[in-house]
């Protein structure tokens, strides 16, 4: 290892590292949203990504989920270098994302959003038709576990409350048997009960061996859930800490830059 000890992800790197993003840069015109960001995620762990507004968290998420192509840098998944040309590639590689904007289509029903891009179909002679029944049933089941006031799966997303929409997006990503689930501020619009349920879902995912990347501005939540925490500032992942070896005060200092990594 040539990197400084504070930048190296964990004390025993390698073994169960699932994803490594190294020196990712991404600019939009003159805005350098990411200037060499590097993070790692380990199997069966919750990795948190924190930082002030505009630090580049969502941009990094969009690079990992195939929406943006990084200008430079590498992503290694399961020991193999990957380049995601499209979100489809990323999800085929086992990365599911709850985007900050939720990525729902308002005019479509809940069940249609649930299976968007991965519709269940059945054969009808020579053609494949949507298996509407199966999709509705499956969506209702997954949603039931998550939402306190689960919306009807046939209602349009347009009609849902902000929290219900968030529940739909989270249930969708969690129900897809992926290796990595990324959640960009998943509890931002949720009430107390719903937040507790989402945290339960996140813990369940971790326990089943999924690597979860959690973006959150809620320090208590991060300390409650995360095994490892990455701090981003101005497009750079400035520090990585084990959750057990840090404190809220240190994280605040790292976020604001009052304390150097």
């Amino acid at each position, binding site marked *: 290892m040539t990197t400084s000890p504070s930048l190296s992800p964990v004390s025993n790197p390698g073994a169960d590292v699932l994803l490594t993003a190294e020196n990712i840069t991404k600019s939009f015109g003159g805005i350098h949203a990411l200037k060499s960001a590097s993070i790692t995620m380990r199997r069966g762990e919750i990795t948190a990504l924190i930082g002030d507004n505009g630090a580049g968290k969502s941009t990094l998420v969009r690079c990992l989920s195939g*929406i943006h192509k990084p200008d430079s840098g590498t992503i290694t998944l399961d020991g193999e270098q990957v380049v995601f040309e499209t*979100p489809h590639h990323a999800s085929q590689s086992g990365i599911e994302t709850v985007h900050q904007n939720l990525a729902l*289509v*308002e*005019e479509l029903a809940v069940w249609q959003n649930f299976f968007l891009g991965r519709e269940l179909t059945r054969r009808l002679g020579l053609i494949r*038709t*949507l298996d509407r029944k199966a999709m509705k049933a499956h969506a209702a089941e997954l949603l039931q576990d998550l939402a306190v006031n689960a919306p009807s799966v046939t209602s349009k997303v347009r009609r849902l409350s902000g929290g219900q929409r968030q529940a739909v997006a989270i249930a969708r990503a969690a129900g897809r048997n992926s290796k990595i689930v990324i959640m960009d501020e998943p509890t931002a619009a949720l009430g107390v009960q719903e937040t507790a349920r989402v945290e339960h879902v996140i813990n369940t995912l971790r326990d089943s061996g999924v690597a979860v990347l959690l973006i959150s501005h809620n320090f208590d939540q991060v300390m409650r859930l995360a095994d490892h925490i990455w701090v981003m500032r101005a497009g750079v992942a400035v520090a990585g800490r084990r959750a057990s070896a840090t404190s809220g005060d240190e994280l605040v200092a790292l976020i604001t830059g009052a304390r150097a990594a």
Partner: protein
Amino acid sequence: MPTPPGSRASTKAPHRMAPMLANIRELSFWAENAASIGLVALVIVFSFLSPAFLTLGNIRAMLIAAAILVILAVAQAFVITTGGIDLSISATMTLGAVGFGLSWSAGRGFVISTVIGILTAALVGLVNGLLIARGKVTDFIATLATLSVATGLALILSDGKPIAVNSSQLLRLTTGSIGIFGYPIILAAVIGAVAWFVMFRTRFGLHVQAVGGNDESAIANGISAVRVRIATYLIAAGLAGVAALLLVARIGAAEPAINTQYLLNSIAAVVLGGVSLTGGKAKIVGPIVGALLLTALTNGLTLLGVSQFYQPLAVGIVVVLAALLTRFQKK
């Protein structure tokens, strides 16, 4: 309190009617069903004013006359659902007709000429799709340009003259019928049914709606908006090619004429059908009823001896009314 069964039934009746009545009082009910209500109203008015309107012969003629517009409206509905618009649709039909005519006059026979006509039209759709989806040219500009290109090509290829087509198959297509339903409207109905199935029962249809509703979200969910858009413009142009066949059959010749009225009416039918031009809200039956309404309007005015000059005016007024009504649709 025990009541005799008879009176109970009568007290219950208004109960059951109440939701429906409340529904009718809602403006959104009228807005959602503008095309159907307008069609019924037109039929009632015209059959009062002209005894010839509701005769079997006239209904048959109207349905045949509606076939081309029904197909174009279905095509336009797909494009508009993606949030786009196809201004080249009638020029594409014209080019398809010329393609059919040239192939026919070169002695290639009905089937091959039909295929060539449809492929010629589809080529315009491919260009539209590539320009809009890959080239990121605004749909309005891209299809305005291909409108001009297709019109020009049709004139150049045909030397500006109609190409006479004396095909027995085409003749059978225009004159044949099952009951009062002529073959053209049957073809249009089959296309409408298939379009409905594709839109509401297949992955592709769902993706069309998703891309039109929010393309960023659709892409984030792994849908290729580029492919969906190209396919949509291709399908629309291919349908215009099918409509071209009916056009040639109707005139008995492939004319390089500019059919602007078909373009305007195809968009009008979709708007009448309650589809918002912003995309994402798919409807197939609505635009078909809209196409029937516009045809009935033209036919009724003709029967009443109203000058042809008034027809575009009437269409314009109907579309404006429909557009105003759609503001009251349920969101």
